[in-house]
């Protein structure tokens, strides 16, 4: 049922430190509103985004780009209506102008237009629905993560690179699932031998396993974020398919948390993502070390996006002197993307979504025999998304 939760200054342990940091400065801290999902099965996504964002603030001594900030966090419980209410409160009561945090597309689609209509600025650390990437793109709307389709296009390209010719593809029967299959098909050059829409709340995939075996594909592409993905992989292995049919997945189907819950059955999985915890660049190493030290849990790419979002905002604040009142000045500063992304190459395209590189990864055993995600090769360089051309900015 419904839900809101707030970890405002001083209430939740994780946030309290940065509040103190902000208070030390003479300047009134800039408030940043974070609407994110913290309860229910998708709760760990929002938790990672929040914690990594806060980590960036903490590492800056309570500041982003030299500006003291205060992060207000509330849980949308994956309910669009709830998210709207929180954003409204942030903007009207707390006079917040800069918002971020939303994990899921359906919440973003409800909240973002409200924020923009009230002259707010929204910087997305995760959801990048196509509706807001093309004709409806907006000057005050930035996406630091990716446009949703890119996840699946990169997986399609990954399947091509690995030489697969016949794919069996599965996704849940909702909008993001349909987009996933479309995105994969857009890039994949081989034949689709089977296409299945699973149920939104489905956890038993025995029937699908039998269909896959019967269709004899040489690769399976599946998009099942969170718990359903864990169940899918376990059952895939138990059905004895993992040995015979390799799998290509986009990052939401195999993040560090999912991997920990699945364990050995994930070995051999091909993943595509824009970041992984083994990236060999100074920014990424610094982030991984700090996150591990503070939270000591697997680092998902969601966390990296939360961190990058904080850095991107910090870079813009530095250029504007900590001001967000002049949205146009903030925009100019933001679009320069003058920060060291943990991903390496990063810039904004014309629709203010990222232009970045995509990498292929594989789940392998580390020296201790535990499964880890290892980066293998670059699949795509400097790619944006297919909606940018419809954007008139």
């Amino acid at each position, binding site marked *: *049922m419904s*839900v809101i939760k*707030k970890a405002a200054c001083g209430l939740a342990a994780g946030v309290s430190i940065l509040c103190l940091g902000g208070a030390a400065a003479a300047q009134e801290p800039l408030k940043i509103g974070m609407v994110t999902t913290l309860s229910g099965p998708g709760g760990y996504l929002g938790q990672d985004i929040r914690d990594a964002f806060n980590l960036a603030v903490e590492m800056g001594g309570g500041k982003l780009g030299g500006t003291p900030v205060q992060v207000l966090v509330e849980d949308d419980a994956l309910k669009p*209506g709830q998210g709207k*209410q929180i954003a409204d409160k942030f903007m*009207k009561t707390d006079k917040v102008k800069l918002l971020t945090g939303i994990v899921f597309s359906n919440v973003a689609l*409800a909240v973002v237009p409200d924020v923009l209509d009230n002259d707010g600025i929204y910087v997305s650390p995760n959801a990048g629905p196509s509706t807001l990437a093309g004709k409806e793109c907006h000057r005050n709307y930035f996406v630091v993560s990716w446009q949703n389709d890119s996840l699946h296009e990169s997986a399609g390209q990954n399947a091509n690179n690995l030489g697969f010719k016949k794919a069996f593809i599965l996704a849940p029967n*909702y*909008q993001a699932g349909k987009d996933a299959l479309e995105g994969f098909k857009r890039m994949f050059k081989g034949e689709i031998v089977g296409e299945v829409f699973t149920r939104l709340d489905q956890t038993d995939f025995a029937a699908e396993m039998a269909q896959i075996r019967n269709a004899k594909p040489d690769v399976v592409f599946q998009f099942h974020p969170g718990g359903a993905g864990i169940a899918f992989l376990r059952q895939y292995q138990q059905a004895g398919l993992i040995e015979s049919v390799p799998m290509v997945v986009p990052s939401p189907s195999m993040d560090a948390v999912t991997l920990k819950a699945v364990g050995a059955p994930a070995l051999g999985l091909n993943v595509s993502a824009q970041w992984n915890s083994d990236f060999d660049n100074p920014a990424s190493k610094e982030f991984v070390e700090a996150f591990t030290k503070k939270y000591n849990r697997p680092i998902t790419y969601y966390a990296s996006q939360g961190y990058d979002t904080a850095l991107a905002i910090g870079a813009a604040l530095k250029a504007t002197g900590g001001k967000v009142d002049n949205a146009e000045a903030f925009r100019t500063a933001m679009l320069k993307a003058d920060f060291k992304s943990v991903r390496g190459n990063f810039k904004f395209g014309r629709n203010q979504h990222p232009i970045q590189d995509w990498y292929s990864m594989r789940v392998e055993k580390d020296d201790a025999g535990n499964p880890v995600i290892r980066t293998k090769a670059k699949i795509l360089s400097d790619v944006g998304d297919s909606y940018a051309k419809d954007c008139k900015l």
Partner: protein
Amino acid sequence: MDEPRTPAVTKDAKPPRWRAWAPYAGLLALVALPFAAQALGQAALTTLATRMVILAIAASALNIALGLGGLVSFGHAAFYGVGAYAVGILTTHGASGAPFLGFIPGSELLGVNLLAAMLASGLVAGAIGALALRTSGVQFIMITLAFAQMLFFFFVALKAYGGDDGVSMRRRNALPGLNMRDDMTFYFVSLAILAVWLGISARLFHSRFGLLLGGIRQSERRMQAIGVSTVRTRWLAFVLSGMGTGLAGGLMAVFGRFVSPDMMHWTQSGELLIMVVLGGAGTIFGPVLGAFALIGLETLLAGWTEHWQVILGPALVLMALTFRGGLARLGRRREGP
């Protein structure tokens, strides 16, 4: 056998005098609320209160089936969602100019769209009611849930209107002469609709139809014996109840400029039920109290701790154990065993 024993409008002996004034005081407080919120710099209270008012309409509509008719529906979120989708779809077509299904013209007028929402949810309630009312008791609870789930999955898979992502509207529906973009104006429009709805409910409760329903709830056989068509009376109550819930759903869609299948989720049905039970099933103001109490409690607790559900859960349990008959019956003499 499974008829709820909560009484309809109870004729208590002498209610304390404050009870007679309470509704007026409440109304006054609601009218003053946005001004107070403005003065205190808590403008978001107005939109929170708008949500409460809209949900109060939905809860009050459910109460016609539940409190008056004894029909425990666990599927009212379906009507709430259908009403919202009616508004969402008509508004989309109104904005684009292309007629819905090729012949129904779209509209961006509040009055037209809310009527359409009531009509659509009434039709759906009519169909579901005709089938579901063949069962009773727990089976009725479950069959209404089943139909709501079917509609939920239908809209999740409905790609033409956004599927799981829902439908966003560019602007709020218009009411000539008023600036609906203004949150305070919208609040008063919602409040006026709630007032009209409560007025209609009160008339209904005391009408012949209301008395018949109460009679059927207490003893169906007796009413049949005196020649009342019990099935038709119940069906009519169910449809009216569905229409009111659809009205609330439509209003919520306009308010948020957004509709998604999430509005039809079974937990939404559960929340509406809880509002009615919490406030007092079968009373006129109970569901309103329940809606304000539940949403208020959620917001308050959530502002206090991240793990607010650990508190809200036991609080609900405690209320179930102690408040027999709901908030609206506090201060009344308890009737019966």
